[in-house]
């Protein structure tokens, strides 16, 4: 425990935000010096480190706040760094540290103008994210939130010559803006409830006020929509698989690793902090929505053939799990089951942190693959483990983590989540008792699918034989990128092996949002294992599992060396006697996804192109489309178009008609005049 702090963590964090802004401005000045521009990213990384450190300091100190002399006349900028924000500050700082380092290396071969543009936008985005976490009134929050949206939009369309990038960027920004409007309304209603005028926009005042349930539900719904647009759960997910593939890989990592999490932060802020008395059905709604999203994401990611699309659907899946966790937390909280609420909250936060780390790792890894091969399509990769040993080894860790198997980090949060599901059996409503535990099955199904997806992702990219001749020239990641990947893989291992220590990071947040006593007692543990005292009792000791794995395998190796010292001989693969000289004998990405498409066929909107029997160069292709796109997005677009057509009918090409409008309006006004 840190006792004496030299500086207020909030000041440090603010200074870092200011520094990022300065770096963004500096990119304008240095726009012709590529080395200096890349050095900016190292500076940004240092800032990220400080930000994470500030978060860590803030965890163990009482929340600090301050105001800046900016903003509206009766509403100066309120800033605050509390325990919840601190958790996300650590997440953000750590992830951004790795991503900044990675980017410094990644941009080595880019054009100077592009580096300059990215450097400016990237650091602006970092500053905006930092400010979102520090914001303590709705005005600052919205400013930071929207600045974050459009600066990330600019990053997404860095390759603006691609039509797809522009389309994706537009979809993203429009979704975000709709969300922001909803948030503005939600904050407005919250503020109206405080009866404090503009000053009611300060979160501090909102925390003191309790809204009547009906209004609170409206706020909740608007907030869920607004933050959902950012986090990307159903049906607001459509921008995710479009934007991630076209964005530069570090940006995808930042999007998936941090930006989605801020949606989660917002939902936590709304449901547990600003609206204090959650209603039980909010929890159920989020739980169902979360599980549906998770299943959707998992199924769809299994059907993808593009590395980054696959990963982005996997992000949807993880966001779904996180949302389910929040749903459980709120459900427990609504029934005042503090211990279980704490458990579910910790599962949520754990999952959030995990996903940030491993998904950034995976996206950065795909970035390196993309750099080395110029290929995003899984069907044209393969065998990269020989060419890119570093990336392959580190991404293996990431894949295991994403698949949620012990002793890696993905499993810890899954375990906590399942345990909280298991506790969901003593609600006053019997049907909740019966229905909620079934959610656990969905979680496990999702985890199983995630493992499937990760085997597909890793196996097809890195294992097997190269599917294209050009892959033979692939090179491993450079130094900066390697450091970043190492950092994130280390993060995965740490989070996986030391759950008890990680959980300590969440205690202050749980104490802030739920109950200090429960936060202290629900989970305990030490370096070897962590122990649960909620409705169920259980232990999990990943370090023991890993130790045993290592010990037994080492012993086996030694014993077998001694007992069966047969020499190793390299031969051509056997393959049941079939020819293996061509890499085309391997499963394609589509082939690997086939069982999923078969099993979940009703969920897909599929187009399959089957070769004719006599074709000499047979091509099999399948395209999986999002049914929600057709069920929701296109109809909305169409109805807007129709509306605007109707409105366009008002333009009649005749002055006489326009005069008639004026005339009729006048008559109407005169009729209506009092």
């Amino acid at each position, binding site marked *: 425990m840190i006792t004496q702090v030299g500086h207020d963590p909030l000041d440090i964090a603010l200074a870092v935000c200011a520094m990022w802004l300065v770096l963004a401005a500096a990119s304008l000045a240095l726009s012709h010096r590529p080395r200096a521009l890349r050095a900016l990213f190292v500076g940004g990384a240092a800032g990220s480190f400080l930000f994470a450190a500030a978060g860590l300091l803030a965890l163990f100190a009482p929340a600090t706040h301050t105001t800046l002399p900016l903003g509206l006349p009766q509403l100066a900028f309120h800033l605050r760094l509390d325990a919840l924000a601190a958790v996300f500050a650590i997440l953000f700082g750590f992830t951004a540290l790795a991503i900044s380092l990675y980017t410094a290396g990644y941009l080595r071969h880019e054009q100077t103008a592009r580096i300059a543009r990215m450097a400016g936008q990237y650091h602006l985005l970092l500053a905006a994210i930092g400010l979102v976490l520090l914001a303590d009134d709705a005005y600052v929050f919205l400013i930071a939130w929207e600045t974050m949206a459009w600066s990330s939009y600019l990053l997404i369309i860095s390759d603006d010559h691609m039509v797809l990038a522009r389309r994706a960027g537009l979809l993203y920004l429009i979704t975000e803006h709709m969300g922001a409007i909803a948030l503005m309304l939600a904050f407005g209603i919250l503020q109206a409830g405080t009866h404090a005028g503009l000053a009611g926009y300060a979160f501090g005042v909102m925390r003191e006020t309790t809204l009547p349930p009906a209004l609170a539900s409206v706020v909740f719904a608007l907030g869920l929509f607004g933050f959902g647009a950012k986090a990307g759960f159903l049906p607001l997910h459509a921008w995710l698989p479009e934007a991630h593939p076209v964005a530069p890989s570090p940006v995808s990592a930042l999007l998936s690793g941090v930006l989605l999490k801020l949606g989660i932060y917002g939902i936590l802020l709304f449901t547990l902090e600003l609206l204090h008395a959650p209603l039980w059905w909010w929890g159920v709604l989020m739980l169902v929505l979360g599980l549906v999203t998770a299943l959707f994401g998992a199924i769809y990611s299994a059907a993808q053939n593009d590395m980054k699309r696959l990963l982005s659907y996997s992000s949807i899946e993880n966001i779904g799990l996180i949302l389910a966790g929040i749903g459980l937390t709120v459900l427990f909280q609504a029934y005042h089951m503090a211990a279980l609420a704490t458990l579910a909250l910790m599962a949520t936060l754990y999952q959030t942190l995990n996903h940030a780390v491993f998904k950034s790792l995976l996206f950065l890894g795909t970035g390196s693959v993309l750099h080395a091969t110029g290929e995003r399509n899984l069907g044209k990769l393969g065998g990269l483990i020989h060419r890119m040993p570093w990336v392959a080894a580190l991404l293996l860790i990431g894949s295991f983590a994403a698949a949620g198997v012990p002793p890696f980090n993905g499993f810890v949060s899954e375990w906590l989540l399942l345990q909280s599901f298991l506790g969901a059996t003593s609600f006053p409503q019997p049907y909740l008792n019966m229905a909620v535990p079934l959610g656990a099955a969905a979680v496990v199904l999702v985890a199983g699918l995630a493992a499937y997806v990760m085997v597909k992702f890793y196996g097809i990219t890195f294992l097997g034989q190269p599917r294209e001749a050009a892959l033979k020239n692939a090179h491993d990641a450079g130094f900066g990128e390697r450091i970043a990947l190492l950092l994130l893989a280390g993060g995965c291992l740490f989070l996986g092996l030391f759950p008890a220590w990680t959980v300590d990071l969440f205690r202050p947040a749980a104490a802030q949002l739920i109950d200090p006593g429960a936060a202290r007692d629900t989970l305990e543990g030490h370096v070897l294992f962590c122990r649960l005292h909620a409705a169920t009792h259980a232990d999990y000791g990943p370090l023991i599992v890993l130790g045993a794995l290592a010990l037994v395998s080492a012993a086996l190796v030694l014993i077998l060396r001694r007992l069966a010292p047969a020499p190793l001989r390299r031969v051509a693969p056997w393959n049941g006697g079939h020819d293996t000289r061509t890499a085309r004998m391997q499963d394609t990405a589509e082939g690997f996804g086939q069982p999923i498409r078969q099993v979940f066929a009703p969920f897909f909107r599929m187009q399959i192109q089957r070769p004719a029997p006599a074709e000499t160069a047979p091509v099999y292709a399948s395209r999986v489309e999002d049914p929600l796109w057709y069920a929701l997005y296109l109809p909305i677009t169409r109805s807007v178009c129709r509306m605007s057509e109707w409105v*366009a009918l008002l*333009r009649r*090409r*005749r*002055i*006489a008609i326009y*005069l*008639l409008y*004026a*005339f009729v309006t*006048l*008559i109407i006004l*005169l009729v209506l*005049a009092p």
Partner: protein
Amino acid sequence: MPLFAQITNLLAALFLLVAFAMLAQRRIVHLINLYALQGGILALSIVAVGYGTHQESLYLSAALNGLLKVIVIPLILYRLVRRLGLAWNRENLLRVPTLLLVGLVLNIFAFDVALPIAHLAGTINRDTFGIALASVLLSLLMMIVRTTALTQVLGFLSLENGLIFAATSVTYGMPMMVELGIALDVIVGVFILGVFFFHIREEFDSLDLHRFDRHEE
């Protein structure tokens, strides 16, 4: 009722009649004549009001209006018509009876709106307010149904007549400065329109408004 008030009411009725006539008139030259007539009636009614209320400034106003609307503007318009070769052009007006019927309905509506207001008025010739409103609405209607630029402008000018009529007969005149300003605007407007017509004809070969509605979205 004093005599001048009776005269004002009579002039108001004539004013309205001319407005109806303009609505139904097809030939441009006749339209201009009617406009001049309306201007004359307007000037006379201002004189009557000035006489009845002993406001000398209204005589000036009457002179100004008379000069402008009986002489200057009609002259300009005649010249324009001649130079544009429109003198005997006639417009295709659809269903004059229908139009007049609509005008009648408008009239009733205007009187209905004006009634409560007229009751409150302290001035003597309060009933003219309804007539002013009616003639404004009729002029608007005329602008809507006309298809050439020149006739539309005539509708506009007649609308302006109605306004001045309202200003003088109902309220015994606006302050002089305002009246002067209004007059200035009207005369500048007419000049600009004159310039305009030539450009429009140059570009479109016609003053028919249907021709130039194609640049829209």
